């Protein structure tokens, strides 16, 4: 039996929600970063589902772009995180509050 497309969309939405709340709640920068990746994958799922429902290849193709970009983001993001937290390994996102007001 074929699972109706809407279910996938709801799953993707739930995944996206989890990713977003994860980013808001967790303090560790790496975990926050992983949540963003989760959100991006949720979006890929949505794209694929819509492509399948619309029977159009465009959606599928755009997943590749998302993957590429996610990869690029990982590289640069981790670079920055490492650069900053090298001196204070146990620091969390909340320690970074020098710029305010």
């Amino acid at each position, binding site marked *: 039996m074929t699972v109706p497309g809407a279910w996938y*969309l709801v799953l993707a939405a739930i995944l*996206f929600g989890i*990713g*977003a709340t994860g*980013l808001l709640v967790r303090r560790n*920068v790496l975990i*926050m*970063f992983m949540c*963003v990746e989760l*959100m*991006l994958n*949720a*979006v890929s799922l*949505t*794209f694929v*589902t*819509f492509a399948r*429902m*619309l029977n*159009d290849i*465009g*959606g599928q193709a*755009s997943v590749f*772009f*998302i993957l*590429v*970009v996610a990869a*690029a*983001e990982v*590289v*640069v*993001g981790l*670079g*920055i*995180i490492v*650069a*900053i937290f090298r001196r204070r390994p146990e620091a969390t*996102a909340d320690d*970074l509050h*020098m*710029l*305010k*007001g």
Partner: protein
Amino acid sequence: MIGLLSHTLVGQTVQAPATGCQVTPGKVTGLCQAFNSLHIPVEYRTILPLLVLSIGALVLLVISAVLPKRSRPGLYPLLTVIISGLAAGASVFQWIDVGNHAATKAIGNQIFYDRFSVLFMLLISVATLFGALLSDSYLQREGLDGVEAYVLMLLASTGAMLMAASAGTIMLFLGLEIMSIALYVMTAYHRRRAASGEGGLKYFILGSFSSAIFLYGAALAYGATGTTQFDEMSVFLARTTLPNDGILLGGMALLIVGLGFKVAAVPFHFWSPDVYEAAPTPFTGYMAAVAKAAGFAGLFRVLLEGFHSQEANWRPAIWLIAVLTLLVGSVLAIAQRDLKRMMAYSSISQAGYVLIGLQSASSQGTAGALFYLLTYTFIIAGTFAVIGLVQGEGEARNDLGAIRGLGRRRPGLALVMLLFLLAQAGVPFTSGFLAKFYVIAAAVNRGQYALAIIGMLAAAIAAFFYLRVGLLMYSSPEVDETKEPTDGAALAGLRPIPGFDTPREPALSQGPGAVAASSDGDGAVALLAPPEGRVEIPFTVGITLAVCAAFTIFAGVSSPVLDFAKHATTYF
């Protein structure tokens, strides 16, 4: 990573029949013949400036790898200037070439080749030129000179141009990411300043969060309209009335939030004050111009190209965002004492005016917004140039005190800074005034009287802190606490000006109620004495200031620039 990117870019798109490869600057034609087996029509002239910049970045990398270290410090900025100059020239060539026929789609109809994108390409290449000129002396002073900064700047510009010319949400996302990632690194570029790293990280996390939101919006829009191309989307929406447009509107909302973050519209602006303060000054100037321009290009593409028929739904949302941006930006700027942070909030408030242009959703509104962005680029470049000079080694003195008494130490510099401040405040005979006039006129033309008045009142509030900085420049360099005015505290820290002091006893104007609107929060903050010594103005910064000032006055007085912006919106 960058190599991968440019390869995919070049590899995937370049496959043009012989005719496609007309005469273009040496570098590209060779590659063109080699890959003519793939039959995707490519007209290089449509993305010429983009190509120039990306290939320029590669060339720069190669040269830096080949040449010995520390051979000639001035080489890289010089090369960057040449490359961005070439890009600017290319976009001028494009402007003539595109003529006035309607927008055509190119590069596998992922790119819109019309005057709108050409204008942005010109704007971005000019901003890059200024960025390079300003970074040169800054980086040498801070000891960070290396090729990376300039390569990053070129790549960020490439991403921005891509956003401006994108014909679909996916291409827009691609451009957005290319630009953003380069900007994250630029923000974190200053190793010795802890703030720079913190700013970079914040920008990165929030940037990726907003990109995810943007992408989700693109997905939903794709789902609702069946396509990611804007023109197909608008055709689809014009033709069919969706039974349940929940997904469509959801998608649109998410797209607005994603791009709203990029242009730092309130309530998505939280990142920009911290990032503007953190980033090295020339990069902040560059970011304020390029990131905002690209973000708005995206917004205009999405809303006026894609969702044009859904106008009734998104205009009230933009109305609210515009009002919030105008007021919150100005009000917060008043409470600032750090120069760069104040400029951050002021640029948020300026974004509010472009949102007014967007909100009126008419070709006049778009033209007004374009003119605003164009003139804003010059003004913000000049302003940050002066801040960069005044703040001294290691950006020690970013506070208002730094600019104190500049009128006495460098009258010329002070006059130019005053011009930029008055332009941002919207004083007539400067481009700032005409920009506000154009945008407000569009709003009034569409009957948005309330928004127009709020816009002008926000300008009045903003004038408060622009003039305060202006006055600081002409106030006394020496700061002594003794002569603190007793009755009715004068504006925080603004002592009577010895040069201008009238030696007589103050004509005490009585009236118990005359409490001055002292703007500092916690009591009269003691402004530190300004940095001693003369403020040297390097040659490169001098040119930038001259060009920006000249343009600000020229655009404020005569009409060619106005017509230029008007023609750029023919196809809306």
